[in-house]
């Protein structure tokens, strides 16, 4: 049941998907991997939309070079754990939701516990090795994984439903080379909000998710295209030879 103040807080979106939809969001739990450029807008918009429980993990400490894009962190947070900084801002943004923040490196030994019993995983990582780990956890548990990544003015996103759609390794069999990537804050803003929008749609049970489609955002030419992607029968993560 929604509280009276929740009916008021969410009144504009209750117009859109009803109290039943809002209750679905209130009952939902989401794991966000990363509290950086993507993680900040994703977490903020899911918090204010009233997702009942947000679990967010990031091992890093806020430094000044983060502040052009990681919009939950402020000058006064420099030196603070991103997990703690994000947690405080999310609680302030919406005191009616639960927030759990983990200042931990996501690795093979803890990914299962960190993800816990959520309804979906949102990929806000900055490297492909952890992304592949999240993909494997999504495949193991059957949880959807909403992928996003950015560089410069460019970004990509796709929604992965294990068993039904191409997985991350089907789409990206090879990780792009690691680098200190250039970025302007609007790029993770655009891609992060596409991911948050996908999360909300999935939790509401909406059709037409970004499944089996890779969305490409090119901010310099202001173009957005989607390409069909397919499962690879020989995918090492979800292909025919892999036990599920």
């Amino acid at each position, binding site marked *: 049941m929604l509280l009276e103040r929740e009916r008021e807080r969410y009144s504009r979106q209750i117009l859109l998907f009803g109290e039943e939809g809002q209750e679905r969001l209130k009952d939902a739990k989401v794991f966000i991997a990363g509290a*950086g450029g993507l993680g900040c807008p994703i977490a903020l918009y899911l918090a204010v939309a009233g997702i009942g429980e947000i679990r967010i993990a990031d091992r890093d400490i806020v430094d000044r070079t983060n502040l052009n894009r990681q919009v939950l962190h402020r000058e006064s947070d420099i030196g603070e754990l991103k997990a703690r900084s994000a947690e405080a801002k999310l609680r302030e943004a919406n005191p009616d939701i639960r927030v759990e923040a983990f200042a931990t490196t996501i690795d093979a030994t803890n990914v299962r516990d960190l993800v816990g019993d959520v309804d979906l995983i949102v990929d806000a990582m900055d490297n492909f090795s952890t992304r592949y780990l999240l993909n494997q956890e999504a495949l193991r548990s059957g949880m959807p994984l909403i992928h996003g990544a950015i*560089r410069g003015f460019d970004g990509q996103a796709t929604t992965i439903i294990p068993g039904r759609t191409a997985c991350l390794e089907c789409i990206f069999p090879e990780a*792009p*080379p*690691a680098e200190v990537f250039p970025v302007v804050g609007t790029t993770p803003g655009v891609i992060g909000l596409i991911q948050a929008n996908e999360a909300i749609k999935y939790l509401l049970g909406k059709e037409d998710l970004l499944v089996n489609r890779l969305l490409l955002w090119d901010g310099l030419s202001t173009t957005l295209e989607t390409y069909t992607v*397919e499962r690879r029968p020989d995918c090492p993560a979800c292909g025919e030879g892999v036990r599920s």
Partner: protein
Amino acid sequence: MKIRVKAFARFREILGSDLPIEFPDGAVMATILAALRGRAGDEGDAIFDGAGRLRTHVILMRNGRRVKRDELDTLVLADGDEVAIFPPVAGG
């Protein structure tokens, strides 16, 4: 025949965007890539390795379908085909 090449992200800056390129009938994907290599010139390092092969993480599509690396020499293109080429990004 005319092939439309769409490059994205960094590759758009290197190759230009939405290029119609003329090829002889029966051209295979490897021929299209060789033309792109020529067009990229010195900036082609982001797309091709030292031996001129497409870098392994680069995504190549024909008419919205992914092209596998082992079919570059055999995949014959047709007039009006669209080839898309882009680098996945990894930041967050």
